[in-house]
């Protein structure tokens, strides 16, 4: 059955519809367009493979718009930087293990802790969560790709070049050295000499541009491309978390981009935003940074919670208790997170009354998290438990995150924070919530979804060893830091004297850090070994309920041979009689998907995905070039825009082949 009568006439074409169709057939090289609707093993499946495959080799690698390849790239790249930043942490711990130590001097130490924090926050934590979402969300909502795959492809290259430029700076003694939040005036033109902070500001522009592009893409695919029948109430919690995170990113990331650019203008063009002598305000940097910075930790934390909400129902063999409450809690957390930022500034000269408000908000945000925790415990309590490695990491999350959240309550109180702010107590708190709330769930997610990504299972025994080493090592490393903070040890010091008495606890912390390193090594070994020799996984090795498990492991480029139609919240656990199960009628010979309505996911419009293209890659290179050129000269800011302009126009410019394909399938609204 052919689709689309085509609207080739009346659109300004001189030739007759017949002639154009003939021409189209020659260009496209096929007969009447074939539609999908048949399952695995059909001719439609073969056509889909043909339509969705990437070119082989390097060119295909650079041009791909497959969200799974791009998502994997994000995950692998961020994890590599996680290891690099972890090695920096090991060096720090070696320096601090003994008083008056000489492993590294102050200049290198200051670069190291800045690089550690910057890499972990901007290059590892947020990108890896976004990368997991880029891979999983289209599968979870039952569609073929994200909404703007070229944009996400470009985002990856921006991210990669940003990360590489930061580390190249570090390699040539131009590593950022003003801390991961680069307070002015230390990071400003007068006291931040050399190119170090210029490179940091560029990294912010690139990594945040990436974050924003991916957020817009994810938000759009979640709102507009879900499988028919997947109303908002039936949407998986992971998808809700991705939506909330993406919306938060859209509102928060512009703040840090603006701040970094203002700082860069001060450095390069002599503006006075942060120069008190000419009317500038040092503190506005902190406001702009933390208005972004506090939501940012939730960009990292909410996906972690989402992993937990995905893993627990599967391993408790029941739907999530309080699904709606958990979703509402995620949304509430998203909103509330914008009202906390001043709690990073309690030691400044802001009015005391204002600070009190932020204490109240900081305590308030604990409530939605508490709701989720109690719902999870209830789900476990009333379920039947399979204690496999993903669930083990979730249990580790419980212990560590709850402890970190409680120290968060402590530092949320102004008077107490005035003692422990900028001390090792805060270092302990932030690592408890970040590793507990994000990294433990992330490892759980790796064990959970590795079979889907690769078609093989990770080794359970190695996983359990890794977990226990990580859990014990983490607590040995970071719990003593609470005590160090209470004993007066400030953050970001490259050494301390023996008379302070901080030596013993620091040595213990260093030993714990070593154990953590060992656990990460075990994970890498597990991944490499299982990648080659692991037990083969079927479509749904965990007998889970969500849509990503309804296709092969790993999924083909087109995700599903037929797009699913869902009728319940747990589509693979229920089978509604008399409800449709899949979509038919989309073209199998071109890259076609389905746009649905926002609330109830009714089928709305057929969507032609953009073809793979080299322009996202080239555009990313031109943007990076523009940034660095503008660091060097004032005119660079203008002339440097010409290459990106050309690249973006070429990216958009429709090719004849694309247009003719569109016309073949066209149906007017």
């Amino acid at each position: 059955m052919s689709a689309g009568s085509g609207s080739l006439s009346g659109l300004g074409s001189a030739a007759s519809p017949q002639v154009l169709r003939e021409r189209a057939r020659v260009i496209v090289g096929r007969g009447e367009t074939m539609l999908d609707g048949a399952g695995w093993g059909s001719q439609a499946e073969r056509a889909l493979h043909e339509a969705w495959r990437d070119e082989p080799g390097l060119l295909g690698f650079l041009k791909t718009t497959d969200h799974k390849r791009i998502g994997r790239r994000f995950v692998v790249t961020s994890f590599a930087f996680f290891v690099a930043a972890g090695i920096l942490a090991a060096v720090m711990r070696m320096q601090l293990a003994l008083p008056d130590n000489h492993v590294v001097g102050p200049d290198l130490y200051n670069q190291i802790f800045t690089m550690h924090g910057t890499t972990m926050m901007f290059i590892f934590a947020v990108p890896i969560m976004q990368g997991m979402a880029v891979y999983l969300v289209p599968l979870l909502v039952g569609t073929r790709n994200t909404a703007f795959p070229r944009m996400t492809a470009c985002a990856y290259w921006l991210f990669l070049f940003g990360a590489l430029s930061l580390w190249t700076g570090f390699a040539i003694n131009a590593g950022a050295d003003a801390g991961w939040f680069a307070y002015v005036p230390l990071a400003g033109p007068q006291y931040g000499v050399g190119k170090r902070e210029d490179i940091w500001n560029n990294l912010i522009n690139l990594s945040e541009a990436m974050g924003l592009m991916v957020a817009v893409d994810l938000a759009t695919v979640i709102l507009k491309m879900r499988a028919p029948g997947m109303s908002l109430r039936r949407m998986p919690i992971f998808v809700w978390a991705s939506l909330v995170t993406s919306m938060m990113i859209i509102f928060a990331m512009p703040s840090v981009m603006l701040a970094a650019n203002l700082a860069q203008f001060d450095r390069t063009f002599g503006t006075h935003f942060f120069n008190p002598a000419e009317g500038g305000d040092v503190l506005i940097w902190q406001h702009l940074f933390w208005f972004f910075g506090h939501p940012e930790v939730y960009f990292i934390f909410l996906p972690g919670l989402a992993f937990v909400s995905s893993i627990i129902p599967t391993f408790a063999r029941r739907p999530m208790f309080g699904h709606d409450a958990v979703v509402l809690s995620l949304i509430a957390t998203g909103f509330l997170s914008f009202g906390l930022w001043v709690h990073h500034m309690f030691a400044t000269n802001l009015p005391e009354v204002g600070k009190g408000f932020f204490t109240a908000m900081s305590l308030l945000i604990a409530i939605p998290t508490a709701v989720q925790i109690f719902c999870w415990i209830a789900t476990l309590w009333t379920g039947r438990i399979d204690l496999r490695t993903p669930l083990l990491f979730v249990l580790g999350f419980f212990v560590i995150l709850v402890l970190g959240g409680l120290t968060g309550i402590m530092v949320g109180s102004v008077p107490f924070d005035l003692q422990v702010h900028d001390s090792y107590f805060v270092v302990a708190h932030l690592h408890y919530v970040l590793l507990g709330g994000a990294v433990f769930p992330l490892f759980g997610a790796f064990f959970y979804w590795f079979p889907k990504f690769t078609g093989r299972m990770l080794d359970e025994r190695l996983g359990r060893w890794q977990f226990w080493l990580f859990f014990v090592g983490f607590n040995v490393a970071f719990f003593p830091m609470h005590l160090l903070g209470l004993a007066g040890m400030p953050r970001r010091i490259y050494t301390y004297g023996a008379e302070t008495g901080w030596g013993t606890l620091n040595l213990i912390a260093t030993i714990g850090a070593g154990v953590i390193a060992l656990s990460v090594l075990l994970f890498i070994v597990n991944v490499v070994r299982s990648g080659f020799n692991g037990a083969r996984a079927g479509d749904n090795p965990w007998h889970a309920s969500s849509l990503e498990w309804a296709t092969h492991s790993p999924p083909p480029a087109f995700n599903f041979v037929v797009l699913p139609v869902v009728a319940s919240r747990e589509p693979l656990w229920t089978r509604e009689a008399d409800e449709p199960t899949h979509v038919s009628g989309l073209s199998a010979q071109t890259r076609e998907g389905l746009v649905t309505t926002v609330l109830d996911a009714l089928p709305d419009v057929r969507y032609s995905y953009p073809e793979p293209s080299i322009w996202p890659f080239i555009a990313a290179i031109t943007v990076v070039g523009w940034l660095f050129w503008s660091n060097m000269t004032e005119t660079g800011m203008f002339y440097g825009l010409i290459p990106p302009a050309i690249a973006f126009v070429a990216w958009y410019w429709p090719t004849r082949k694309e247009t003719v394909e569109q016309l073949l399938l066209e149906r007017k609204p």
Partner: protein
Amino acid sequence: MIGGLHDVQAPAGAQAQAIVGLWHWLLPICTFVFVAVMIALGMALWRAPRAGTDTAPDVALLSKREPRVTRVVIAAVAVSTLLLLVLLAVSVMTDRALAQLPLENALHIELTGYQWWWEARYDDPDPSRMFTTANELHVPVGRPVIVTLVGADVIHSFWVPSLAGKKDLIPGRDTTVSFRADRAGVYRGQCAEFCGYQHAKMALYVIADPPDDYARWAERQRAPAAEPSTDEARRGRDLFLARSCAMCHAINGTTAQARHAPDLTHVASRMTIAAGALENTPSNRTAWILDPQQIKPGTKMPSENIAPQDLAALSAYLASLQ
């Protein structure tokens, strides 16, 4: 090596005491919540039957309500909210206690943070009774102190854990912090906002003296530098004024009046030098003058070539600056 109390949990002043009061609410309540949640989690794991992932999931729960579980969860959230409100109330009360420190007859000090040292100017209604020192404050026990905090270059933070919470020194935003030492003793503080290379070695000592001892100390600080008694010390003074030392350091009673570096008028009376990096002994002073970059790399004081006899003379002069 120098001691000095620097323990949040060992308060020696009113402000730090109030904060410890708050800590005595925070710690037990948070510990209780942690233990309760862990017990709940443990019980959930212990009670729930074991299954494999090939066990059929309980999908009836998609349409069935679970009233008992709902009630328990709501109760848990309610208790958590209540405890949070309690902590909020205690926090607010502590805030007020901190703001209500009586400030009559306060001592006024203007503390300026530089990379990587502290300048303290003791204010007085009579300007002739003001004096400047560095890196070591003496305060009278039982009398409130109001410190005006001025950031000269980058952001620093004034933190003496046993006396009070911290406050940042932000360029362009002068502010004040108040405290009162209630027990005599030596209290150690350290800069608590990353400020560059030697942030790690920017310590500050606050020494609480009984009021009479304090008065004696202040009188001595007001006096100009003592006239050196030995030839070597006099030669040291001449060297000090002729060499680059006088370009940065001030010594009251001489022509050296620059304020780019710590005031040295009474340097020999201090416990430490180089902002707490070294104990203040003759050999340490000598080592510091000879090669500050070795002890505090990146510090603003350059390492210069000094002939040994000049070095000895300078040391002798400094030793005389009691």
